[in-house]
């Protein structure tokens, strides 16, 4: 077993976010500043303490560029990254901040994703001619993400007997979690029937299998474990991370994601096994992708995620609570950085601060979404492209 040299050497020390809406009414720059300054304040730091910046986007450069943020706050940075990588890079964004801190290049790195994806649809007019990989899909009308990832789902259904009713159970459980989350965009109750009666978008996905689009921002601050001990909140340590990226829909086994490739080294890197995971926040642009992530990261045996969620084992008091904030499906789509935000909240001594509890957490599931006594969280990005193991102090 080879543990990663970064194990427990860095921590998430600050978290911030804007409200998640369908119309922010402001620029991604202002969203970044709101979330970023909130995260810096949460950490007990000053803006000038930030000396590294990481952000990412997918195809359309609709986040705030690092140099614009550095200019807006008059920061002197030692390292800046902006990646065109999308949701598969969610955990890589945090991991590269970890690496910059662990290498001694930066002291405090701000990681963020800001977007006006719901209200700013201006980029959606496609060109008429397509080169690169798209030349083999666009002429056939299959560039839509649901059409791309749907193949993985129908292959899994044919191989293991997974059904769209299994998808319904996952969607309903995550909606229950979102109903206990003040910042979630979709909080009204959903029934199995609601799911099964919703219209088809791209078979095997109905409307309620698909995540929403969001205006909003999430920001996180990463510092060294040593420095973290003097900051405002108890640190949440990064045990290990992997960023294989990979093509979610082009694995040798069509029903798997890149997760199967990075999971062994992820767990070895942290010196744990999947059995040690207390809860998980798994990328879920479509219901099925969350199911396959459960399997690919070893939380559930291959092919058994359908029965697992139908039995409710992914609930807040289940065997492994999954997407405790509601996920991309019901909380918001902030390119998965909201998954890391939730994991950090759950692992802090005071727990989540935006459920419906007043004062101490009660574990009464009509108000409380705090997981009982969690120690270790698994988070993964789209198609198992990146992943992190986090632990409480």
């Amino acid at each position, binding site marked *: 077993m080879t543990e990663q040299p970064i194990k427990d050497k860095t921590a998430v020390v600050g978290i911030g976010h804007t409200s998640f809406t369908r119309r922010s009414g402001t620029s991604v720059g202002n969203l970044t500043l709101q979330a970023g300054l909130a995260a810096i304040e949460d950490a007990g730091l000053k803006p000038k303490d930030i000396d590294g910046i990481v952000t990412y986007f997918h195809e359309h450069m609709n986040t705030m560029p690092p140099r614009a943020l550095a200019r807006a706050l008059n920061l002197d940075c030692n390292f800046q990254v902006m990646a065109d990588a999308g949701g598969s890079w969610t955990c890589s964004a945090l991991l590269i901040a970890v690496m910059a801190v662990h290498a001694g290049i930066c002291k405090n790195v701000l990681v963020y994703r800001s977007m006006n994806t719901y209200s700013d649809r201006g980029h959606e007019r496609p060109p008429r*001619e*397509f080169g690169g990989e798209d030349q083999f899909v666009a002429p*056939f*009308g299959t560039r839509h993400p649901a059409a791309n990832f749907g*193949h993985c789902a129908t292959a899994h259904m044919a191989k293991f007997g997974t059904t769209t009713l299994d998808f319904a159970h996952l969607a309903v459980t995550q909606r229950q979690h979102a109903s206990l989350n003040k910042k979630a965009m979709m909080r009204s109750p959903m029934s199995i029937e609601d799911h099964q009666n919703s219209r088809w978008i*791209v078979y095997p996905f109905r409307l309620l299998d698909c995540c929403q689009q969001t205006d909003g921002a999430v920001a996180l601050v990463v510092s060294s474990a040593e420095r973290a001990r003097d900051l405002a909140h108890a640190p949440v340590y990064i045990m290990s991370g992997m960023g294989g990226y990979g093509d979610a829909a082009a694995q040798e086994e069509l029903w798997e994601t890149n997760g199967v490739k990075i999971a062994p080294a992820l767990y070895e890197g942290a010196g744990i096994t999947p059995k040690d995971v207390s809860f998980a926040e798994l990328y879920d642009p479509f219901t099925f992708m969350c199911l396959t992530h459960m399997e690919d990261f070893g939380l559930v045996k291959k092919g058994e995620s359908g029965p697992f969620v139908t039995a409710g084992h992914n609930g807040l008091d289940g065997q492994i609570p999954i997407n405790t904030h509601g996920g991309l499906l019901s909380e918001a789509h902030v390119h998965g950085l909201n998954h890391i935000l939730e994991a950090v909240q759950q692992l802090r001594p005071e727990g989540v601060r935006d459920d419906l509890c007043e004062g101490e957490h009660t574990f009464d599931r009509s108000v409380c979404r705090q997981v009982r006594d969690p120690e270790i969280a698994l988070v993964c990005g789209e198609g198992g492209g990146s992943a992190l193991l986090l632990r409480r102090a």
Partner: protein
Amino acid sequence: MTEVERYAKPLPIPDEDTAEFWKGCKAHELRAQRCSACGAWRWPPQGICPECYSWDFEWRTLSNTGRVSSFVVVHHDPGAFPDQVPYVVGNITIDGTDDRVRMRSRLEGISGEEVQVGMPVRVRFEDVTAEITLPKFTPTAGIR
């Protein structure tokens, strides 16, 4: 103006690696590269073999048949095909390619309720412009 010239849907831009594939389609043949050094099939087309890193290859004419390895049925398309929904897109594994040549393409002559994983299919070439021919597929049994 002829029907062909009026084609207004997305078209591919062939490049140095893929031009021979599209040339094959125009000749109503499916073509893919096979590594001259180790015999591995390459898909999508690329300069180097991902198995042995040889730059040598030859273009081979493939079977006209394959099977459906996975599929989706598009009921809502925010892109270029809202007038054609619902339509079926198959992930077609071409016969005789060691499961390496897999193409996402239209499955025609079958409904979303009828299509199944494992179903045998055959290519049907559609000449959409003077330069471009698209390979689409229909079920081998009972072509309508």
